[in-house]
């Protein structure tokens, strides 16, 4: 019987396998990390300080542009890099691995991107977590933007990799497959959300939609995820309201807002998040900045666009007169998603 089920399960319809593979996260927590970084700029700064501050061993480097750049930021980091200067051109964009440092399971890779055909590369260009080294090991990955040179239209980044097992072999294969460019990052006043906010009776809860995750504010920071998980399922979620909907910026629509069981909910819809990485958050600004107590993100029916519902549990109706809602949104235009096949083999010395 055991063999029966083993063989039967082996031959299930491929569409179910494809569906499950599509939800496999090869580099776990990258998107979640991005969201947290956005919300807490201080953490982002700390990560960079830890990153740059932790490099100590010195290795000679040449007179590469990236090396000069790195020296101006942190000489210790620059001294560690071994020059590589290997390039790969695809889709009119040249990726150059300027220098690397490999130490056990850790690596730092300095990479630059230059648009040979136009102005697609700019100071907002993002590697969209699409960089990888050829390795079977799991690990933490990070990417820090270093500089954009207007004259040469070259953006430079430092990628760091930290995996459990040593990076083996005498070559490191580094590749990038997607870029996001032309990104906008701004704070937008959501003046349509006035003080006359309707009380609504939603028809769905987080337990009945396809949730993507949630972010917890300070009030819930000491809850463990199991506890939160049970709580979250009961949270009512707004039905999108075409009458209320407006777009503060391309790629984001505020789809509904209202009082739900005494809590203020604001719902946003982010376009095509897998390709454009549109994301952000909503906050209330009066004498002080009030962030949501939590937010829940969930897919639309096509699993292309993502709703995010921000819940403010402590705002009272009378508070609304003395402040206004704002959103910080990071968006990419539809033509800002660039695919390519950039890969370079670097010799590890």
């Amino acid at each position: 019987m055991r063999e029966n089920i083993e063989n039967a399960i082996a031959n299930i319809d491929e569409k179910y396998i494809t569906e499950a593979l599509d939800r496999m996260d090869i580099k776990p927590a990258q998107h979640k990390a991005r969201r947290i970084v956005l919300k807490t700029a201080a953490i982002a700064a700390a990560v960079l300080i830890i990153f740059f501050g932790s490099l100590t061993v010195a290795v000679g480097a040449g007179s590469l542009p990236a090396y000069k750049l790195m020296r101006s930021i942190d000489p210790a980091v620059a001294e560690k890099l071994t020059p590589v200067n290997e390039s790969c051109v695809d889709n009119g964009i040249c990726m150059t691995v300027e220098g690397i440092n490999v130490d056990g399971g850790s690596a730092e890779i300095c990479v630059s991107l230059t648009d040979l055909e136009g102005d697609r590369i700019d100071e907002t260009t993002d590697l969209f977590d699409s960089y990888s080294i050829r390795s079977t090991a799991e690990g933490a990955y990070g990417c820090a933007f270093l500089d954009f040179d207007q004259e040469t239209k070259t953006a430079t980044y430092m990628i760091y990799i930290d995996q459990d097992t040593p990076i083996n072999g005498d070559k490191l294969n580094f590749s990038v497959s997607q870029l996001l460019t032309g990104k906008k990052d701004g704070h937008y006043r959501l003046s349509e959300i006035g003080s006359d906010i309707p009380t609504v009776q939603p028809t769905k809860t987080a337990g009945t939609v396809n949730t993507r995750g949630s972010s917890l504010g300070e009030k819930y920071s000491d809850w463990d995820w199991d506890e939160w998980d049970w709580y979250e399922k009961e949270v009512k979620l707004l039905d999108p309201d075409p009458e209320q909907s407006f777009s503060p910026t391309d790629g984001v629509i505020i789809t509904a807002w209202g009082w739900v069981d005494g809590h203020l909910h604001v719902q946003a819809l982010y376009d095509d998040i897998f390709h454009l990485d549109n994301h952000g958050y909503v906050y209330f600004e009066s004498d002080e900045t009030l962030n949501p107590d939590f937010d829940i993100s969930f897919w639309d029916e096509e699993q292309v666009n993502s709703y995010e519902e921000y819940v403010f549990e402590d705002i009272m109706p009378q508070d609304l007169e003395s402040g206004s809602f704002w959103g910080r949104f990071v968006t990419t235009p539809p033509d800002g998603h660039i695919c390519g096949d950039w890969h370079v083999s670097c010799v590890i010395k």
Partner: protein
Amino acid sequence: MEDQQIIALFFERSQRAVAELSEKYGKLCRSLSLRIVGDEQDAEECVNDAYLAVWDTIPPQNPSSLSAYVCKITRNLSLKRYRHNSAQKRNDLYERSLDELSECIADGRDVEYRLDEKELTASIDRFLGMLNPVDRVMFVQRYWLCCEITDIASNLKKSKNYVNVHLYRTRTRLKEHLSKEGYL
């Protein structure tokens, strides 16, 4: 590189085809194989054999999903290797997932009793078609891709407890479904 471009390279019999396949799906296949065979060297060999099998079968095959196609071959070869090896070494991860699933059809029948596996597969497909997408993905990641609960939780941004509870409920529903369709 897009899947269709990689498949086109196989049709052209280009040597780059395997390199591109490895570049895109090598990590996925190695991790799948490793979860089944439990040994890095065996996993590497299974994946290399899978590449060769893909080379031998495309063309004439033209899979609609290259990832599912190469994973299916990798999984089958890894199971074959695992069964061959299992007299010497058993892989807890794979055995645990199979134990959980086997409970669905454990009914005290004679061990020689054999179900028609094709029909059983068709019945499981029907069952999967009735599940909501998240429960279905959890099920397939656990019992086809042999993922750890922790990894499924991470993939789906759910808690471990959520995954455990939902998998348990899905197994219970599968047992009911198989019973209703006359397999138990």
